[in-house]
C-alpha cells in the first residue's frame, strides 16, 4: 500500500520536476559568457554585468531604457540591452545589474523584461562575481 502510494507520488513529483526543469530554466551568465554562446541558444537568460558610462539612452517621459552592459571583468566585452518597464532609480552608469530576457536574433541586442540593480546592502562586504 505504502509502496504503491510512494510510486504514484514519486511519479507525479518526477513529472512536475521534469516539466519544471524543461521550461523554467535559463542560463545565468556573465556578459563574456553570453557573447561566447550562439545567439539562438540565448532565448532565455539572466545576465550579470555593469552599466556602461556611454550609450545610455533613456526617453524623458516614457518607460524603459537602452544601455550597454559590460562584463564585470573584461571591459571590452559588451552587449546592447533594451529594457521596457519602470527603471529602478538605483539604475545609473557604473552599477551592477541583473537583466532577464532573451537575445533578439534580428538586432543582436538583448531584450530584457526584468531589470534589477544589485542590492547595495551593507551585508555585502565585498563585490563578488
Amino acid at each position, binding site marked *: *500500500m*505504502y509502496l504503491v*502510494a*510512494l510510486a504514484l*507520488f514519486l511519479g*507525479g*513529483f518526477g513529472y*512536475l*520536476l521534469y*516539466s*519544471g*526543469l524543461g*521550461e*523554467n*530554466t*535559463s*542560463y*545565468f*551568465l556573465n556578459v563574456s*559568457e553570453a557573447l561566447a*554562446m550562439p545567439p539562438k541558444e540565448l532565448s532565455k537568460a*539572466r545576465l*550579470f554585468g555593469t552599466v556602461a558610462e556611454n550609450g545610455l539612452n533613456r526617453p524623458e*517621459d*516614457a*518607460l524603459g531604457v537602452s544601455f550597454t552592459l559590460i562584463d564585470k571583468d573584461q571591459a571590452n566585452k559588451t552587449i546592447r540591452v533594451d529594457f521596457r*518597464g*519602470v*527603471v*529602478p*532609480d*538605483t539604475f545609473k552608469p557604473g552599477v551592477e545589474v*541583473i537583466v*532577464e530576457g532573451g537575445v533578439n536574433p534580428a538586432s543582436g541586442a538583448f531584450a530584457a523584461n526584468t531589470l*534589477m540593480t*544589485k*542590492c*547595495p*546592502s*551593507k*551585508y*555585502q*562586504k*565585498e563585490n*563578488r562575481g
Partner: protein
Amino acid sequence: MHVTAYFALLAAMMLCLAGAVAALAGLWQREYGRLALIEKGHLLATAAVVLSSAILTVALWRRDFSFVYVAEYTDTLLPLFYTLTAFWAGQAGSLLFWMLVIALCGVCFALSPAYKSLSLPTRHAYWMFFLTVEAFFLLLLTGPTNPFLEAVPPVPEGRGLNPLLRNPGMIFHPPLLFLGYAGFTIPACLALAAWLCGERASFAAAARNTTILSWIFLTAGILLGGWWSYMELGWGGYWAWDPVENASLIPWLVGTAFLHTSIVERRTKALAKTNVALAVVTFVTCILGTYLVRSGVVESLHAFGEGGVGGPLLLFMLFTLVVLAAVLVAGAPYFTDRVKPLAGLMSVPGFLVILAWLMLALSAVVFLGTLWPVISKLWSANPVGLDAGFYNRVCLPLFALVTALVAFCPLLSWSEGVRDKAGLGVAVGAFVGGGVVLYGLGLHLPVALFAGAASVAAMATVGYVFLRQRHARSRAGALGAYCVHLGLALVTLGVAFSGPYQINQEAVLMPGRTMEVGGFTLTYKDLELEQNKAVAISRAVIDVSKNGQPVGVLTPERRIYTGFEQPFAEVSTIPSLGDELYATLINSTEKKAASLKVSVNPLINWIWIGGTLMCLAPFFSLRRLRAKAE
C-alpha cells in the same frame, strides 16, 4: 571591553569542550557522577556568553564606535531602538545571538521535567552532543567572525544601518528565525542521545515542547520576512524564491515533517528511527540555511558576502550527518524489537507519513532549485538557473495536496479506515461546493482551484470536528492543532488568489492625470516634498475611487536617508480583506512626473491572518510532560 568579551567567549568555548569530553568519558566508563559538574559548566559557559552579549549591547547603546561591529551597523542619527536591534544586523552579531539563544534554551531545557525524565546515560550523551554544537558556534565567534574586533584607530562616526532594515518587520524577523534554528538544536541532540543509549521512553515526547516552540518561532520568522518583503521592498509580492528566502524555508519544511512523524511515534511507537533522522536533518538544514546565505555559493539578489564561515559550516554539516549515521547504526540493537509497525495508509499515521513525504519532497525541490546554478555546472559549460516559475510549478501543487490532507486526515481513524462517515460527507461536500463557488468567482487555474477547494474543505472539516467531537475542544493538544490547520487553510486560500490573480500596472503620470487598475481609478494629485536631518522624502498623493465612490488615499514615498545615496521606496496600501490596493513610487522628476507601480492583491491579507493563527495556536498545544507514563 573588547578583550573581556572576547575572552568570555573563549572561556565559554573551553568550558563547552571540557564538558563534552567529561560527558564522553562518563559514557565510556559508565560512571555518571559528574553530571552535576557538566550542568554547572554549561551554566557557567552560558553566563560567559550572556556577559559578552551584554557588552555588545552596551557598546551599541553607547554607540561605541571603537567596536568595528558597532561602527559598521549604526551611526549617531539612528534611533535607539534600531541601534540596539543592530545586534543582529550583521553576520558576527547574528551568530552571537544564535549562540546566546542556544545556550539559554539549553539552560531552560535542563530545568524542565522532560530533561529530568531522561536516564543518566542519555543525559550524558545529550550534553556531549549539545556542548559540541555550542563549542562549534563559539569557535566561529572566536575565530573567523568575531563581533568584538576593535577599530584602530577609532572612527568618529558609524556607517549606519541599511534603511531597508529600519522596519519593525525586519527587526523581529531575524531573531525569530534564530530562536527557531536554535531551538531545533535540542530535539536533534536528544534524538542522538536517546538512540545511542537506547532510552526507554521516546525522545519525541521529551522534545515535544521544544519542537513546537521552535516551529512557532521559525514560522513566525518566515511569515514576518514575507510581510517585510511585501511592505518594504515595494515589488508587490511577498515571496520571490530567492536563495535567502529558500534558506529559511528548507528547515521549516523538514521541521514540519519531523513535527508530524513524531506524533506518530508518540501515539503508536512506530517510526522511531525516522524521527531520529528527521530531528537531526532539521538541525542540519538550519545550518545549511546559514551556509547558503553566508558562503556565497549561489548568486543572490542580496548576497550577504563571504565571511569566512562557509567552509567551517559545510564541514560541521557533514560531520553531523556522519555522526547521525554512526549513532543510527550503534543504537539500532536496542530498538529491534521495540518499534511497532506502521498502520495502513488510510489512517491518521498513513496521512501523516504522506505529509512527511510531501514536506521532504518540497525541501528537496527548494534545495536543488537553489543550488541548481552550482549543480548544472556538472554537465553544462554555463551555469543554468531556475526562475520563480519553476518553484511555483513544482511546489504549489504539493502545497495544495498538503491542504487536501489537512481536510481529510482528522476524519480517519488511528488504525485503519474512516472514523467519521458524516464528517467525510461534510469534507467532500465542502470540497466540491467550494470548488464550484470559487470557479464561479473566477478561480479557473486548475492548481489554484484545487488548492482553494481544499482549503474550503479543510475549514469545513475543522469546523465540523470542532462542533461534533468533544475531544477537539477539551484536549489542549488537539485544539491547537486544529487552529493551526485552520490558519493553514486561510493561507492557502490567500496564496491561491493573490498569486495568480494579482493585477500589476506601471505608469508615468503628471499631476492631475489618472490611471485605471483592476476597476480602481487612481488620480495623481501632487508630489509633496519633506526634508529633515536624517531623511528627505518625496511623497505622491493619489486619490483612489471605485465606481465614483472614494476608497481612500495612497501616499507612496521615496526616501533618501543621510549617508545612503540610493532612494528607498515606502509602500502605501489601502488595506482590505478583499482586494488590497498597493502602490510604490518608483521615481519622480523635478517636473513632478511620477513613475508608479500599482497592484491589486486579492485576499492577500488572509495570508497574514492565517499565518498569525498558525503562529499563535500551537501555544495551546504546549503541555508539561506527564511524570513517567509507565
